[in-house]
């Protein structure tokens, strides 16, 4: 199937205001090198800790930020061409749902007015009557009744607000919606409903989702493919099931093994506990080589020196780690420190046996 969205070597740097007397320009490298592709109607997840640049990627795809480098193509046309020739069409095609519905809806407008602004800005629907029915239908899609049109956001619960935000995003029949932590501000009891609605909308309207989140157990249940980001780079990507059963990058293993689970049966599905040292560094000074090496429990000398080459291990499982490269090339097997790490790589196998 042809890819709907292709992101290639995406880069984004933000200039930091340099203080008085401080020489040179400093940059925050929010996104360093990100490539992935989303197909029509699929859910693609980006996971990582805060500060890993996943939201920046979402904003770049939606066009809120302009990329410093790299290329984003949507339906085979690059984003800059879209924006140059048909800017409105672009914003109709790619929509965004924010994390906190409480602050993304305008508190001074009724839901109907919020819809009206969008309809006017993106030129959706002709005439008052058509626009009105569009709004009602959009609300029906998220199982809200017509009476919500004339209420203000403050009278809605968090879940209802997020459903309105989703209805707004779907109004222009987009090909892709960027979901930036759509449920992390909500209770688990409400999360289920939102995810169920999103899945239904995807089936009915064939929308693709770029699902940005830090909740790994949620990702396991919604996404077809998943990429793990760390400090502006994708460190591992795979089919979601494969990623959870055979996590190869130590960072992925650390993330998965930290999930607080609710039963022993689930604990057995996780890799053995990998504890990273310390916390994610600031993106203003990203460590040399593999950015994860200062925190990595199985770091080797080479990790601090050179950036590992990403390798494809078949069936779409891609990983960017010296351990994986070393074990994939039997020629370089002679290195002393390798044995310990190899057992690390083997752990997923153990998990599979338990299953």
């Amino acid at each position, binding site marked *: 199937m042809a890819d709907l969205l292709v992101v290639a070597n995406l880069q984004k740097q933000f200039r930091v205001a340099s203080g008085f007397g401080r020489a040179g320009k400093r940059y925050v490298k929010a996104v360093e090198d990100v490539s992935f592709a989303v197909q029509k109607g699929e859910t693609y997840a980006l996971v990582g800790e805060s500060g890993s640049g996943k939201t920046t990627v979402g904003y770049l795809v939606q066009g809120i930020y302009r990329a410093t480098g790299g290329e984003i193509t949507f339906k085979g046309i690059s984003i800059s061409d879209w924006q140059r020739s048909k800017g409105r069409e672009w914003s109709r095609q790619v929509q965004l749902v924010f994390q906190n519905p409480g602050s993304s809806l305008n508190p001074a407008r009724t839901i109907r007015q919020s819809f009206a602004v969008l309809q006017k800005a993106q030129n959706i629907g002709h005439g008052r009557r058509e626009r009105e029915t569009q709004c009602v239908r959009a609300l029906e899609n998220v199982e809200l009744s017509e009476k919500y049109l004339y209420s203000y956001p403050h009278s809605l619960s968090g879940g209802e607000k997020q459903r309105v935000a989703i209805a707004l995003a779907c109004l222009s029949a987009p090909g892709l919606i960027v979901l930036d932590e759509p449920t992390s501000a909500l209770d688990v009891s409400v999360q289920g409903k939102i995810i169920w609605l999103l899945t239904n909308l995807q089936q009915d309207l064939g929308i693709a989702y770029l699902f940005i989140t830090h909740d790994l157990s949620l990702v396991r*249940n919604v996404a077809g493919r998943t990429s793990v980001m760390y400090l502006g780079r994708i460190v591992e990507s795979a089919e979601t099931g494969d990623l959870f059963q055979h996590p190869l990058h130590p960072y992925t293993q650390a993330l998965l093994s930290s999930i607080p*689970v609710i039963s022993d049966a689930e604990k057995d599905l996780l890799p053995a506990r990998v504890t990273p040292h310390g916390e994610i560094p600031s993106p203003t000074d990203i460590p040399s080589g593999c950015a994860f090496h200062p925190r990595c429990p199985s770091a080797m000398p080479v990790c601090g020196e050179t950036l590992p080459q990403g390798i494809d291990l078949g069936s779409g499982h891609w990983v960017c780690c010296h351990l994986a490269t070393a074990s994939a090339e039997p020629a370089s097997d002679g290195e002393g420190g390798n044995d310990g790490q190899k057992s690390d790589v083997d752990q997923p196998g153990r998990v599979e046996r338990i299953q």
Partner: protein
Amino acid sequence: MDRRHVGMLLTVCDLHLEFVGFDGIAKVLDGVSLRVKAGEKVGLVGESGCGKTVTMKSILGILASPPARVTRGSILYKEWDILKVRKRGLPRVHGGGMSYVPQDPMSSLNPVFTIGTQMRDVLKYADAKLTGRRGKRSRLVAVEALARVQLADPERLLKSYAFQLSGGMQQRVLIAMGLLSHPELVIADEPGTALDVTIQAQILEMLDALVQEEGLALLIITHNLGVVNTLVDWVYTMYAGSIVEEGPTAGVFAGPAHPYTKALIACVPKLAGGGIGRGIPGRVPSYFAAPSGCRFGPRCVCAFDTCGLRKPEMTGVREGPGHSAACFLLEQDRTA
């Protein structure tokens, strides 16, 4: 002293609390009973808006009154009856071994004072002897406390401001502050849930180790069932101002008895995949017009006519000692 309080560190007994506002009276707590033994780790879970924080604040005695008003019940902590201790007596209770780790590390530290100043303020209440002589000893105590929560370079930390620290470090500082007064009971509101999973796991492991080491009792208040399962021994489920289920963590998670606990556990995305449940329909009711009888009734899939008539009593679940739930289904089960 209450018979039920014997051998307990904290006993909250049938607490009813309401808020008087312009719109009427919000009956928020409707019979909360919970007990914490010395050295025990207890969790209180529920959705947002179900009264967890109000319960915690009334235990700490920091709810503004008015508007809050306790209509029935008691809170006993060691030899104190918290509801009867006057405002001025409260520091004595808190110095006497109850401390609090607040929810949001980013907004709980004062941005205009250094960590050192804030820690000294805590010590002033905790132990007046320490701050007497120019605070030299209090400084040592603070350094030691920061080292205990595995923070590197505590000397430098004392001079830094909250915004210079990462979220994980702020959370550790708050835990260090909570432990400064050598408490016997630590009440932690959503520990680590504002942080990333790897950091959260680190914080929880550390908290667990500290509690073991010092033999503290821990009461954590959270909506994250995973955190409860990994950390606590005993769990209370709360819905709309009342405790609906209690029991040993393993027992409750393996066989939840109350429909609310069942629904809540079913909502958590499973690692085995296979999609997630549709959640619980509806929302936590307004406390100005709370439903009569069982407050979960209107959202419950198994509700029948008795549920709307009177409030169910806590009934023991057959399997599992100490495991009980407030549901008519269980009462029926018992009589059948």
